[in-house]
Structures are given as C-alpha cells and as structure tokens.
C-alpha cells in the first residue's frame, strides 16, 4: 500500500483491476454480511455488467467506424440519415432491458423497507459530530465519539490501522436477530451508513426514519456519516459490534449496571468538593473531547462561526449563565445541550477549566453541586 506502487499503476491496469475483483485494495462495493447487502451487491453487479455489455457494443461499433470510415482511407461518405425502423428498435430494446432490471430492484427495495417484527430497536441520534444510541425498553444509552487522537490527524503520530473509523463506545447488536434502527438528529441532517449492512438512512432533525438489519456473523463493522453535517463531518464514524445473543445480553446487562452506578455516583458527588487540580485535569480531557472541535483547543473559537471562550464575558464573570449554556445549549446556534451527554462531574470540571485556562485566570471552582443547583433551578 505504498505511494510508489500506486504511481506505477496505469489506467488499463486499473480498468482490469475493476473487473478482476481484486481483494488487496477495495475496488468494488462490499458484499456485506447480510442477506440484503448481498442482494444489493448482486443488483450492483447485474447493472454493472449490463452497462459493460451495452458499452462494448456501442463503443465497438463506434471505434470500428473510426478505424474504417475515415477520409484518410479514401472512402466516400454515404448519405443516409433516417430510419424509423432503427429508431424504434433502439428505443424498444433499452426499455426491455430496463424492465428486466427493475424487477429484482423492486423486490429488494420492498424487502429493505419492511421494518416490521423487529427483535431489538435502537434509537440512533446524530448530532454535531457524534452519534447517540439508545436501546428502547432498556435503560441503556450512550454517546459514541471518534476515538482517533488529534495527534494522528495533524500528522504528529503515526496513523493507526482504523484511522478515523474508530470510536470510544461502539454500538452493540445481537447476531441472528432483526434489529430496527430509528434515526433522528438533534441539529443538522446526518446520515447513518454501515456499508456491510447496506444501511444508509438520513437522520433528520424533528423526524424519525426507519431501517433494519439482520447480521448473522459476529464481527466489527465500520461506517461513517454520509451527509455533510458541518465542519467535522469527516470525523463522525460508526462502529457496530455484532455479538452472539448470549454475549449481547451480558453486555447489555453490564451497560445497564454501569449506567446505574454512574448515576448513583452523581448523587454522592453532590456533597463532595473536588480540588482545582482534579477539576482542571478532568476538565481538559472533557474539553478536548467535546468542546475543542468548535471552540478550538486554544479557546479562541473560529471568528464568525464559533465564539471564543478565552477572554469572553461569560467565561470571566457569569457563572450561572455559563453553567446554563453548557447544560441547555443555545437555541438557534450550534451550541448543544450537554446535560444528557456529560456527567455532573464532567460539566463542573469543564466549566472550571474554561474559567481558568488560556489566561482566563478567574481562580473560581465550579462543583457538581453548583451544576446540580442550576439544573434544579430550571424546575425540571
């Protein structure tokens, strides 16, 4: 996979490779791991070969003509210029080919859209620039963020094998079960795409779309957001882990426990005070993961789109306002509500960090209890 090798490639060899089903470097659509994805692949190959056949005939005649019917060979041009018979013929033949093609395409499409009788339902919510998964009928939900370190993106560290296709918490689904996805979005339109399942569905804010898959083989399947959703559209991958039903159940119970435990810890935290050091270190980590994409690692934002935090009136003076905007977001802007994305501890820490980093030296500490107070004050 070195650069020099790719440079040696010539166009003819590329064309050959396209038809040779080379496995080394992906050149063709994946067959995927589901019945549907296999059908989609078959449709793709059928229409591809139909196009190749038509192309061979049309271009063949054309190049034959270019070689034979050239003035340099001293030919006299014929003068025919009309034939209704021929016109009818080359209108009718394509129509027949298209009808033959439309039949399997229609069948597959109808099967793809049948989301009934699902065993598991997952609500998938896109937001700039992460995915949120919620298992309906279970107390399990979490965010799934890009796990590739920034240093790899800016070429400081060597890139890992799954560069840009790795997340902190993958979606887990059981094998052999029909899994239904409900797609929606908190902000702009995203599109949830896993090529191995042949599932690509837009996540529209305010509306719910449906899709489904049934994976037979346990494994790790990777995808990406497929609809331009702003600055970091290229950085919101999808990872799905398919597990045998028993492993899946164990995982689900483990997750439910983990989430319940975290909630209990939250309550304990309310009576504790964290040190500046701890707040700053948790805060920096949280800031880098959740805030730096817009407000930038140096807190200066992007003028005209994302406001600076460094030296901002809110980060220097207004503590309740600061807590409020982090908790609830700002309607009509890209600023999201983090109340459900982050723990009280993380919110307290990130606010403390924002009030004490980059020369914002207010010296003020915000504790989980302060965040909780603002949350309660809102009356919910």
């Amino acid at each position: 996979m070195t650069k020099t090798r790719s440079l040696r490639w010539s166009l003819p060899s590329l064309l050959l490779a396209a038809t040779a089903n080379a496995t080394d470097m992906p050149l063709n659509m994946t067959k995927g791991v589901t019945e549907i994805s296999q059908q989609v692949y078959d449709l793709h190959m059928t229409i591809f070969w139909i196009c190749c056949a038509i192309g061979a005939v049309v271009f063949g005649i054309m190049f034959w003509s270019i070689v034979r019917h050239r003035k340099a060979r001293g030919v006299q041009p014929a003068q025919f210029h009309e034939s209704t018979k021929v016109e009818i013929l080359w209108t009718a033949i394509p129509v027949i080919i298209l009808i033959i093609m439309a039949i399997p395409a229609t069948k597959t499409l109808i099967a793809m859209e049948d989301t009934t009788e699902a065993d598991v339902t997952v609500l998938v919510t896109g937001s700039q620039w992460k995915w949120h998964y919620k298992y309906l009928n279970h107390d399990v939900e979490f965010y799934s963020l890009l796990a590739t370190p920034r240093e790899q993106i800016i070429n400081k560290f060597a890139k890992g094998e799954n560069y840009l296709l790795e997340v902190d918490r993958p979606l887990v689904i059981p094998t052999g079960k029909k899994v239904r996805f409900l797609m929606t979005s908190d902000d702009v339109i995203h599109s949830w795409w896993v090529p191995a399942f042949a599932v690509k569905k837009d996540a529209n804010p305010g509306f719910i779309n449906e899709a489904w898959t049934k994976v037979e083989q346990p494994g790790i399947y990777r995808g990406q957001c497929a609809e331009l959703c702003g600055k970091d559209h290229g950085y919101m991958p999808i990872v799905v882990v398919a597990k045998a039903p028993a492993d899946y159940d164990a995982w689900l119970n483990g997750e439910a426990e983990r989430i319940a435990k975290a909630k209990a810890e939250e309550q304990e935290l309310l009576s504790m005070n964290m040190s500046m050091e701890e707040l700053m270190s948790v805060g920096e980590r949280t800031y880098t993961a959740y805030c730096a994409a817009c407000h930038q690692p140096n807190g200066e934002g992007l003028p005209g789109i994302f406001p600076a935090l460094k030296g901002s009136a809110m980060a220097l003076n207004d503590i309740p306002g600061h807590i409020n905007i982090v908790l609830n977001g700002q309607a009509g802007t890209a600023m999201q509500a983090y109340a459900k994305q982050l723990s009280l501890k993380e919110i307290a820490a990130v606010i403390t960090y924002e009030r004490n980093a980059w020369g914002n030296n207010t010296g003020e500490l915000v504790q989980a209890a302060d965040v909780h107070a603002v949350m309660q004050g809102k009356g919910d």
Partner: protein
Amino acid sequence: MSAAVTDHEHDHEHHDHKPSGIKRWFYTTNHKDIGSMYLIFALVMFFIGGAMAMVIRAELFQPGMQFVEPNFFNQMTTVHGLIMVFGAVMPAFTGLANWMIPMMIGAPDMALPRMNNWSFWILPFAFLILLMSLFMPGGGPSFGWTFYAPLSTTYSGDSTALFVFSVHIMGISSIMGAINVIVTIFNLRAPGMTWMKMPLFVWTWLITAFLLIMVMPVLAGVVTMVLTDKYFATSFFDAAGGGDPVLFQHIFWFFGHPEVYIMILPAFGIVSSIVPTFARKPLFGYASMVYATSSIALLSFLVWAHHMFTTGMPVAGALFFMYCTMLIAVPTGVKVFNWVATMWRGAMTFEVPMMFALAFIVLFTIGGFSGLMLAITPADFQYHDTYFVVAHFHYVLVTGAVFSIIAGAYYWLPKWTGFMYDEKLGQWHFWCSLISVNLLFFPMHFVGLAGMPRRIPDYALQFADFNAFISIGGFLFGASQLIFVWVLVKCARGGEKATAQVWEGAEGLEWEVPSPAPYHTFETPPVIK
C-alpha cells in the same frame, strides 16, 4: 428592429461602427460582443473554480490534515461547485448561444439586445459577492453547493446572506438570458427557417431556455426561504417551528434536476453539429434527436427525488422515482445511437473539435452508465453521497458539458477570430486533457464503491493510494487547460486565414458569412433553400 437594420446595406463601414475602448464592452448590445464576454467570463471562472479544486486535491493527496482546516475545505467544495455550475458551464453555454443562435437562424442579433447587455453585466457582480464572502470572519458558504437546511440556515455563518444575494443575481441573469433565447428563436428566424430545419444546437438551446425559466424561479424561491429562515424567524425548514428540513431538498432538487439537463442539452446540440461536419454525412435521425431532447426535458421534472432516496420516503415514492429515472436512459441512449449512426460509413477526419466530440460521446456515456446504476434505488443506498456520485457527475459535467464547450470553442474559433487555431497545440491539449481527466475521475468510482464518503477533508487509510493517484490526475488536468489558454490567445492574435466555410463538411448559415464574422450579420434575412 427590422426598420433599424434595413437601410444600412450600402455602407459596410458605417454599420461596423461601435464605441471604442472599454465603453464598447460596457455599452454593447451586440450579440457577438456579449457572447465573447460570456465566454471569457466563463473561462476566468473555470480557472478560479479550478484553483479551488486544486486546493481540495492537495488536501486529499494524503490522509491527515496538511494544508487547510476542515472549515476552509468545506468552503472550497461549496464555492468550487457553485462557480463551476453557475459561473463556468452555464455562462459558457449562454456565450455560445449568443454568438451562434442568431447566425444559425439568420437573425441580425438577439431579440432583446439591451436586456442581453444587462444579463451579462450583473454576473461579474454576483460572483464578486460570492468570492468576497470567503474573506468574511468565519469564511464563505461551507454547506455544499446544495446548501441543505438546516446546515445552511440555523447552523451557517453570516456569509449566507451574501450567498443568497449572489444566487439571486445569477438566477436573474439566467432567466433574462433564457427569455432572450426563446424570443429570438420564436421571432427572428429567417423566412424559410422552419422549426424542423433549425440546427440542433438551436433546438437544444430552445428547450434548455424553457427549462431555465421554469426552474430558476424555484431556486430563487428556495434561497429566499433559506434567507428568511435564517434571519426573519420563519420555519420553512425547521421542524421545531412546524417546518420540514426534507422539504428543502424537494424544492432544491425540483430546480436541481432540470438544472442538470440545462448543463447538458446544449452540449448535445454542439456534438450534433460537430459530428456530421467531420463525418461529412448528415446527422442521423434529426427528428428523433428533437423528440429525444424534448422527452429528456419533460422527464427531468419527474425524477428530482432520486437525489433523496436515503431521506426516507414511502416505497411507492421511491419506486416511482426509480422507474422514471431509468426511463431517462432511453432517450439519452437514442441520442448516442444516432451519433454513432452518423459516423457509420462517413468519411471522418479528426481535427480537435471532432476529437473532443468523440471523447464526449464515450465519456458522457460512461457518466450515463453510472447514472443508470445510481437509479437502482437499493444500490443507491450504497452509492449515495460517496465518491461514486462525485465520479458520476464529473463524468457528465467535465467530460460531458466542459468537453462539449471546448469542442464548440475549437469548432467556431476560426469563425470568431478569422484565423485557424494551432492544430498541433490543440491536439496536445486534447490528449493531455483526455488522459489526465480519466486519471482524475475514473479511480473515484473505486474509492466510492470502497466506501469513501464525499465532502470529507480526511479519510481512512485504505483510500490513500487512490486519492494520491486522483490528485495527480487533478493537477495534470488543471495544467493541461493552460495549453487551451495558449491556443486561444495564439488564435486571437493571428494565424492561417480561415475561409468562410472553415471546415470542408460544415453546413449551415453560420458558415456562409465571412470569417471573422462581421460585426453585424444577416441584416437582410438570408434565403433558406
């Protein structure tokens, strides 16, 4: 109009009179001057949009971020698309229409010359506004040339206001140009130039002009809705206020799909002029070409949602749009078959215009094939928003529309300048373009099928080799176009004198006037045999 031109015939010097210097260009109502300005403007925009493509390809040369930030990358993809569609391809076709339609139908000028002047002169301001928006705090538009809401409304920067204003101006310019073409063709045909005697370039442009006046107001409407959603608290596309973000896509693509044909129908006309000339044989199936073009135009209003299969629509809707889209392959196929039948048993020569026209036929057809693949809805779920789509529309727009414009430019250049262009340089331009454009766009099919989404500034490692390859093709294609500029400048300055007919097999009214075409042509209508 006819009264103004009748009594000048005795004095050729007199009616070639025109203001000199810069005033000539600001005040001109002459279709040839305006045509030239459109063409030069389009060429300048082609290079500005091309420079942005070079930025995109430089960043994508290797994985990781090297040269630009993601936000700027998005501005480049957005403005590259807008400039190429509205600044390069459409004005180039309008320029060709201005130059050639009056000469092809035996008219003295366009029917509405003052409006013609205005429709050109507002264009530079539209693009100045668009380009200036790149220098605003936060940069220019970064939501893709398709400006999907709510990314372009709630979540966009303040350059959106400039973007909307600039699109309005472009739209007004296009509508005026289209009205002018329609009025000219309906009213100024020479006696005896019946509908079914009109050259196909005139026919395809007439149909294009109707598409333009039907869909440009829709574009104006949708950008206005974006503007009011963003600044005046309406909620057309905001679910929280009772709107629907998908409604935006329906309105946009109701404009956008006919727009695609606006950019290809005149290309069909150009190729239908060039192939018979160099095959020395009349166009095969003239009438079926006219009917096929009309069918494509009508069908273009019934397929818009094939851009939206993944947005979630009822199965019946998806099936309807899939079938209609597949149907478009039929009239398009008829056109390609007719061109091949025109060549069959002709006596072909291969000057530069013919080379570009032949490349057009093959490569546009490849773009058509991938279009047919994209029509298959289940497969589209895998292709949609990947580089496969990018490959598809660059095959139909670059090796389709742009190649036809270049072919037309070489074909009519001797008529415009009075000199033959440098054939050897032209052949260099052709072969360099042909090879590099395929290095550039063909591998995009593979990265798309392998799963690379479009509009991303950085990508996973398995796409790295092909992207390096594509970028090199891109730089070479960009450099190849400098040869074109060289040919144009050289041809404008002098060369072998062109005859009136220019090409041995050329037929039509434009080849009966001297080369270069006099400032005013056909002040008395010609006699059509």
